[in-house]
């Protein structure tokens, strides 16, 4: 009961914040504190429900007459609620010290609380109408946030594409719920659970759900809007969209595939697995070749969503074959990755925001040397970069490790297609992991290391306290999440058991904190011990080395290969760092072409180098349809300019055709 009041109160607070911000400018200062408070309360309630394995439900006489508006907070939604409100909390913290006088913030702040509330409401909606209502509200508010920089044509294009794709997603979710509800129109989730659809309908529903949630989460080929829209928004909003809103899409898919659609059939697993793996690799290939800091992060979001979908697909496959332990591993991997990604992606976007704030630049090739000009941000960003590269002992690796364990169990699946898919998936995930490392070494190396490539980068300064706190909290979570993977997985035990039927084997490792999949005899990852040993080893080395060695350290010029005082432009840029990867992968995936124009010997003219990439996904799935629609529109437009007599001809034709139909039908 208290929980319900907590939820209602917090949502009310968000509403109040939005209204205040709309009405009076003096209230703008209140928005972020109110949001932070509401997020705290909501997160607390969610956490309590998640850990106590309870559920809150309420039913309001709103929405459709057929089924009122039903709200229910069960462990699944509670888990995602924790994720979301964590993101909202840190984003609001970050927002605290933003300049409130610009026109931009005035456009942003009234919508921020609505966005936060809508995401929470999607999670607790317990009937199809409410779910889609709030889902669409979420898209709408985030659209307005993306469009906030309204004089910039780029963000206009982005927001347009974004909302159209969101509408596409909503329509296919409408289909999904239509199939689930059936002709009788039982839209409440209970009614749907009561009579799950037959296999044929289930296939359609699954496809629709995959399109609907994939388009919001950025599943290839529905991804193209994401790297345009997420970066276009203000950075803390980008953090919300990338770190958190994509998780709502994951939630939608889980709700449909694991809950509403009834017991899974094994082949349900194939589409999410295949699309997910494809998305993971493609997303990073995009990311590793892009030069815009925020866009790189957005692309890496696509990759992580793909990874999560792979994990969910594996969970479906195992569950369909009643391999409970394996299903538990895969599902835990998915959930933990949802959590971890929300943390380090928010951290990275906030860091990018700090960089943007300090230098006014997003292009990697204009940055550099920030580790000296904004040291704190540099440290925090480094934590995020290492976490997202799935490197131990940070949190990204925990979920990655579990996922690999699930893949390694893949060969035991009876269906040929699945156990032959397993190695391919494993290889693609490994490739994705390696690419992620490359991608973020590249980002960090060009943005924060080396020497400044522009005056802005040289003049940069660390950002305000609130922003640093926000990033610090997230960085801390990344580290703790990395060390305490075992306990975290145990905390999700109820939820996983409820969904997958089994739970993660706990204990058996060398320490109680170790993470165990399929029993200790098979695979263990004990982050604390590893971290401890690494720490001991490094400290001892430090001590010993400093004992035995000369302590003297001299500062000298870098090795210049005989060219004294090389300018910063001689450094490796982001583009040049990507060159080997582009040569190896880009030529295949993006049919990349390099052209070098060398002046003849003795000519002083500079050599010119240019690269051409083709985004086939865009060409096929976006450019072509858009061209088709506009072309057809142009063609049909003739009908606006016919003469009256011709219109009469149309009318006459319609009449005669209908009459002849009546004449032939008996």
């Amino acid at each position, binding site marked *: 009961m208290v929980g319900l009041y907590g939820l209602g109160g917090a949502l009310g607070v968000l509403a109040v914040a939005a209204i205040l911000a709309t009405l009076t400018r003096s209230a703008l200062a209140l928005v972020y504190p109110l949001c932070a408070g509401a997020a705290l309360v909501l997160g607390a309630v969610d956490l309590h429900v998640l850990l106590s394995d309870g559920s809150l439900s309420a039913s309001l006489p709103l929405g459709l007459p057929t089924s009122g508006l039903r709200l229910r907070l069960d462990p699944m939604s509670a888990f995602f609620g924790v994720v979301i409100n964590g993101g909202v909390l840190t984003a609001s913290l970050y927002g605290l010290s933003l300049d409130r006088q610009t026109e931009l913030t005035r456009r942003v702040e009234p919508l921020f609380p609505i966005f936060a509330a809508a995401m929470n409401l999607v999670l607790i909606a317990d009937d199809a109408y409410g779910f889609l209502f709030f889902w669409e509200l979420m898209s709408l508010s985030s659209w307005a946030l993306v469009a906030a920089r309204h004089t910039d044509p780029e963000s206009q294009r982005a927001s347009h594409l974004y909302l159209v794709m969101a509408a596409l997603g909503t329509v296919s979710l409408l289909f999904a719920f239509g199939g689930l509800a059936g002709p009788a129109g039982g839209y409440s989730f209970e009614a749907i659970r009561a009579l799950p659809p037959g296999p044929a309908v289930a296939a359609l529903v699954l496809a629709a759900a995959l399109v609907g949630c994939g388009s919001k989460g950025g599943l290839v080929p529905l991804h193209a809007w994401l790297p345009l829209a997420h970066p276009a928004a203000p950075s803390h909003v980008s953090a919300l969209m990338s770190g958190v809103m994509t998780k709502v899409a994951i939630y939608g898919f889980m709700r449909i595939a694991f809950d509403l659609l009834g017991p899974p059939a094994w082949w349900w697993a194939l589409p999410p697995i295949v699309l997910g793996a494809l998305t993971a690799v493609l997303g990073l290939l995009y990311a590793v070749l892009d030069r815009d800091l925020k866009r790189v992060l957005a692309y890496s979001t696509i990759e992580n969503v793909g990874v999560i979908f792979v994990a969910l697909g594996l969970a479906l496959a195992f569950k369909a074959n009643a391999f409970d332990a394996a299903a538990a591993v895969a599902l835990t991997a998915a959930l933990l990755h949802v959590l971890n990604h929300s943390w380090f992606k928010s951290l990275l976007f906030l860091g990018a925001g700090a960089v943007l704030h300090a230098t006014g630049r997003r292009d990697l090739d204009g940055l550099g040397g920030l580790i000296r000009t904004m040291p704190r941000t540099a440290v925090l960003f480094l934590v995020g970069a290492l976490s997202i590269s799935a490197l131990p002992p940070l949190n990204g690796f925990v979920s990655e490790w579990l996922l690999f364990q699930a893949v390694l169990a893949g060969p035991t699946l009876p269906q040929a297609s699945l156990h032959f898919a397993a190695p391919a998936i494993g290889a693609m995930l490994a490739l994705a992991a390696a690419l992620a490392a490359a991608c973020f070494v590249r980002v960090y190396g060009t943005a924060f290391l080396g020497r400044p490539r522009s005056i802005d980068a040289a003049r940069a300064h660390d950002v305000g306290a609130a922003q640093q706190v926000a990033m610090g909290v997230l960085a801390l979570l990344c580290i703790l999440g990395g060390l305490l993977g075992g306990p975290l997985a145990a905390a999700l035990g109820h939820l996983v058991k409820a969904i997958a039927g089994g739970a993660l084997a706990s204990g058996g490792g060398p320490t109680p904190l170790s993470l165990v999949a399929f029993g200790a005899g098979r695979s263990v990852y004990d982050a604390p011990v590893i971290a401890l040993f690494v720490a001991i080893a490094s400290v001892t080395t430090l001590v010993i080395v400093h004992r035995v060695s000369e302590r003297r350290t001299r500062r000298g010029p870098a090795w210049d290969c005989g060219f004294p005082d090389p300018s910063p432009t001689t450094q490796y840029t982001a583009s040049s760092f990507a060159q080997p990867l582009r040569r190896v992968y880009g030529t295949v995936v993006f049919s990349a072409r390099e052209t070098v124009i060398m002046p003849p010997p003795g000519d002083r003219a500079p050599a010119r180098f240019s690269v051409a990439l083709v985004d086939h996904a865009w060409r096929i799935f976006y450019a072509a349809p858009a061209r088709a629609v506009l072309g057809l529109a142009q063609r049909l437009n003739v009908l*606006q*300019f016919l*003469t*009256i*007599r*011709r219109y*009469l*001809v149309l009318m*006459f034709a319609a*009449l*005669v055709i209908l*009459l*002849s139909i*009546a*004449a032939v039908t*008996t």
Partner: protein
Amino acid sequence: MKLAYEISHLLAGVMLVASFALLYQQRIAAVLNAFAAQSITLALAVAWAAWSEDRPDLFITAAIALGLKGVLIPVALHRTVTRLGVHREVEKVVGVGMALLVGLALCGLSQALVVKVAPAMAGLGRDELALAMAIVLLGFLMMIVRRNAVTQVVGFMSMENGLILAATGARGMPLVVEVSVAFSVLIALFVFAVFVFRIRERFDTIDIEALDRMRGDRR
């Protein structure tokens, strides 16, 4: 009774012939005359129905048909044609032969449709219904195969003749008189428009500049 039916049937047939005459005529003056003839036949048919079925109110309709469409409007249109200096020739979209063929097809269609109706149907005979429908469709055809405003008006009015025929034929149908009055108002508006707004015969031009001038959506 039989005789009454025969006569009304005959008159309806004459009207159909007149409709074909409308399609056939080459000169506007002739078109107008054909239309006048059709309207007068209609007046006769309505009057006959009024007398034979003893529905005096129908005489009003008959009078309107005779006065307005039989005399007044044809004369007025003759005037317009001469005053606005409209071409004396009817501008056809499809040739006369083609138009007549299509008209024939339409008669066939209305026959085919009416045949499906159960013969037991009271009110007016199936074939008379077929005739009326044919006249309506032919009027419509007239509107789309002839190009200038006057012939369009004429086509519309002959359509409406068919309607009145059907209405009067439908025994005991209320409001027929009111409706016929309403229609005459409509036609009056029609002709009025032709006069006042100087709707020339070249109204439905295919000249792009004129389109740009007229249609608000190209500028």
